[in-house]
């Protein structure tokens, strides 16, 4: 797999990151060298092997269904650039 200009633009757009031409070139180089390195894994035969989701052998910790009854409003909105009557206010999203 090779990363080209189109792919890097698409990834940048999906990540909401703005890249100038110089940066795109740098990222194409960097990402390609990472992919080349990872591609060595293709030498291993993985037929009939289920994809691995996690390398830890421990068990998923679970919690009981207990709710904490604290009012989070003030704390949660503390860093919001804009708020109104307990809501986050963001630029209009029209759908």
């Amino acid at each position, binding site marked *: 797999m090779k990363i080209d200009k189109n792919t890097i633009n698409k990834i940048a*757009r999906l990540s909401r990151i703005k890249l100038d031409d110089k940066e795109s070139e740098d990222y194409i180089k960097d990402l390609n060298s990472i992919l080349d390195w990872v591609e060595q894994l293709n030498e291993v035969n993985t037929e009939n092997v289920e994809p691995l989701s996690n390398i830890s052998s421990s068990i*998923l910790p*679970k919690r009981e*269904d*207990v709710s904490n009854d604290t009012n*989070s409003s003030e704390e949660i909105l503390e860093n919001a650039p*804009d708020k*109104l009557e307990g809501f986050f206010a963001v630029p*209009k999203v029209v759908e």
Partner: protein
Amino acid sequence: MNNLIKGEKHDWEMVIGLEIHAQVKSNSKLFSSSSTKFGSSPNSQVSLVDAAMPGMLPVINKYCVEQAVKTGVGLNAKINNYSVFDRKNYFYADLPQGYQISQYKFPIVGEGKVTIDFKDGTSKDIRIVRLHLEQDAGKSLHDQNPSKTYVDLNRSGVALMEIVSEPDIRTPDEAGMYISKIRSILMYLNTCDGNMQEGSLRADVNISVRKPGDEYGTRCEIKNLNSIKFIKQAINYEAKRQIEILETGGSIEQNTMLFNTSTGKTRPMRNKEEAHDYRYFPDPDLLPLEISKEEIAKIKSSIPELPDELKNKFIETYKLSNYDASVLTAEKQTSDYFNETINSDPELKNHAKIVVNWITSELFSLLNKNNQDLNNSPVSPENLGQLIKLISTNEISGKIAKDVLEEMFSSGKTARQIVDEKGLQQVTDQVEIAKVIDEVIAENPKMVEQYLAGKDKLLGFFVGQAMKLTKGKANPKMLNDILKQKLNKKN
């Protein structure tokens, strides 16, 4: 049954599949301890996990996992011992993480099926593809301010079960029956409150049209419908739209649509940029979810009687029709009410059909008229049972019983009290009825003549007169019999 839509050159068939989002009825969210209570003030139930503050880690709610398994069993589905949580990546103002934790390749529940019952006694299976657990997003309010969108994260992180059907549905009615059946199963299991108005249960509808027998056509997805009425409306409109395009030589573009509830129309979502590039990958913050056979068996053993089992039991025990039994079992409160009524007196078991009718037509219409719910019905099952017993033992007539029920409904008195107070007992004394009939015959010699001359319809007139004299209390069958006897003797 004809499921086809008439077209210009040939008939069209709809092919419909549903993705139902059912909110798990739990106290706290799927990966945090925030409350799930509906209607609280905005952003008051948001933990640092729900707001996606850096460094916060999700911890799964054990109860939500159990409810998903329970629901899977209720859908006759395969429970997977091993499932994985993935990140579904997209940007939206009400999704602080920038991804939704969901399940992609390995869902917690696999293939299953549910059965829907038609009025004509037939039924149909709708296959389920899967059920998976995922987080809900926050809520955006677009109409409060011309330049701003307001965001409330209370719902962010609440546990949802997404139930995906195969495209086995062929009509808007079937779609409605399918979601009603799923809702009914969820409510019997008590894994979701089924409240569509509050958004605890909502659906995305996939729909395409085809010439019967052809391959599936290109489909469109209508997002986020929260009532059965809207689901049917949206399907009807969308099918018509697609047929119109195809019949004028166009082709369908696969699209995500929104349904406008005030115009009844669908339109494509404006934001199609990078449609569906969700870049799913396993969430590194969560280990795979493993459930042992023992745990599954334990959950299975805790499952209450489900609508279909109960339906079969009603058919067998009380000889009810498939349709009557499915109406009774559609909602748990109805089957509970029926059970309590029929068990309130051993006699009633022989009059099951009458009990069904009194609940589903008489009582339901009173409740409807007064905007009330069976759960807080002013007439208790025991009292309704008493009323039906008065009918079945001929103490009062069915007609008078309707008035009695209305009074029970408004006054809260028992049937017995009302019947005794007002002296409504049916007159079943032969001599007394005969006396009244003699009176009616004597007062209407002309009518008697006409009747005897062949005007059979006049029998109703005599019955009416006699009923009037007895204030409606004469036993109708005895009245009829004696009246015919007496009139014919005149011949």
